[in-house]
């Protein structure tokens, strides 16, 4: 690992700070409470698609394992169950085994917002309002900041469902998308590798190659919604039984946020946790203890709510006109 001091990034860094203040300002006005949280935790939510950082607290002979939190979700949901109400976290999160690239950093800033009593589309309206607010602030300052920022119109979302996007950009029909056999056949015809791959693997190949590059490229931010239930994670399922109430939003082909109508059923949650834990084991990932208190809190009752996680570094990158999240760092640590 190398540690680099990048004083030449001061211009972009200052814009990032301005955007961070603007976001906090907006959320405070809207009545959200900022939540400060630990980043070291003895337990975590099992998530199979990421790896965690492991460390330990030592006191003489005693050693207690601790993990850096890959997201603030486990703590925020506990607080929601205790009635904290609308809230957000803007701070560091950590994901191991993700080498730094223009869009990835193993240590990054996450903006996670929860709103009580709304579904994912209602939270989307609030997020759009926040983007408009940042846009306005940046535009009034842009001559002073001397930034070249690609013009995006934040008047509305360009909304497209996952099924519509697969048909429009990859020529895959809805009936093929939700039928494993037909989907694999279609993927093979298109030249994708399917041998030994899961539905999720094949889906991800096509999504990354044929869908994502189009998202958020038509002058508006794109909101792509209703992911197949295989990608439900902690989202509530739709009544069609095939899709989850999850959306992601994109600008210029870059994914910025991931939103769910949160799953409030603790039994379903427990079941998904077990599945994720099994997957982690199979993938030989770090076997961390599961947060049982989280399940207890859900038993107590998570109010109906929606939550969104926004990659703050990427958001600041887009608004500052930089082409890599690394351009916003004053101290850059990388391989």
């Amino acid at each position: 690992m190398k540690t680099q001091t990048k004083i030449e990034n001061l211009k972009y860094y200052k814009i990032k700070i301005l955007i961070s203040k603007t976001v906090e300002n907006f959320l405070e006005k809207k009545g959200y409470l900022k939540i400060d949280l630990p980043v070291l935790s003895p337990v975590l939510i099992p998530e199979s698609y990421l790896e965690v950082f492991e460390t330990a607290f030592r006191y003489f002979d005693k050693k207690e394992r601790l993990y850096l939190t890959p997201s603030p979700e486990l703590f925020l949901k506990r607080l929601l169950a205790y009635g904290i109400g609308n809230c957000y976290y803007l701070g560091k999160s950590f994901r191991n085994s993700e080498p730094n690239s223009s869009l990835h950093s193993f240590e990054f800033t996450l903006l996670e917002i929860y709103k009580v009593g709304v579904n994912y589309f209602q939270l989307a309206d609030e997020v759009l309002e926040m983007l408009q607010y940042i846009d306005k602030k940046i535009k009034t300052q842009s001559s002073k900041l001397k930034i070249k920022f690609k013009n995006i119109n934040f008047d509305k979302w360009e909304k497209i469902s996952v099924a519509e996007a697969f048909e429009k950009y990859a020529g895959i029909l809805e009936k093929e998308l939700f039928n494993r056999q037909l989907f694999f056949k279609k993927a093979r015809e298109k030249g994708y590798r399917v041998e030994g791959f899961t539905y999720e693997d094949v889906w991800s190949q096509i999504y990354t190659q044929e869908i994502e590059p189009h998202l958020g490229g038509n002058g508006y931010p794109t909101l792509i919604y209703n992911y197949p239930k295989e990608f439900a994670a902690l989202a509530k399922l739709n009544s069609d039984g095939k899709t989850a109430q999850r959306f992601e939003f994109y600008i210029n082909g870059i994914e910025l946020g991931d939103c769910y109508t949160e799953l409030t059923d603790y039994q379903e949650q427990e079941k998904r946790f077990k599945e994720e834990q099994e997957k982690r084991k199979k993938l030989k990932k770090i076997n961390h203890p599961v947060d049982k208190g989280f399940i207890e809190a859900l038993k107590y009752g998570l109010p109906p709510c929606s939550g969104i996680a926004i990659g703050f570094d990427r958001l600041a990158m887009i608004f500052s006109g930089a082409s890599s999240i690394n351009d916003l760092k004053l101290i850059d640590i990388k391989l």
Partner: protein
Amino acid sequence: MKTNAGNLKKSEFISYQNQIWQIQKAEFYSPGKGSALMKTKIKNVISNKVIDVTFKSNEEVEIIPIETRELMFLYKDNESLYFMDEKNYEQYSLSKQTVGEMADFLKENSKIYGLIFEDKLLNIRPPLSVVLTIVKTEEAVKGDTVTGAKKEAILETGAKVMVPLFLKTGDKISVNPETGEYTGKVNN
């Protein structure tokens, strides 16, 4: 040698669908759903076709140990181009189809890097530019001062390129052999 796709780096050679490809771009990508991915752009060393391939980052990929060796370009005929390794006088040939339009920009007895695997020349590595002499071009018409105007010039290898009007027969110019574009005048 096998490696995880997550370790792939630019300019390495890999085996993909039983053919050899060179990595032009490789970027790690974790979509936050499903497994982490390696997005790559790879170029087939024989057909020069470029494709996008998304690998799972923990997928095993075979790295091909390609050797880059300096060769001398000897001559070409209707079908092939012939090269020689000056160190051991070993000769190699490549079909015109493999070399593509670049064949028109290679000067006899010039040096070029070849990609060699299991004693076979797979392709040549295109240089960023080649310097060639203009053997024929029209004199510029006086008063023709349209900015950016170009005319055709025939080079010593027989290739035709579009050049700015001020260039004359006998001038040396540099050309990008992959695109066939004029990139500048070279002073003697």
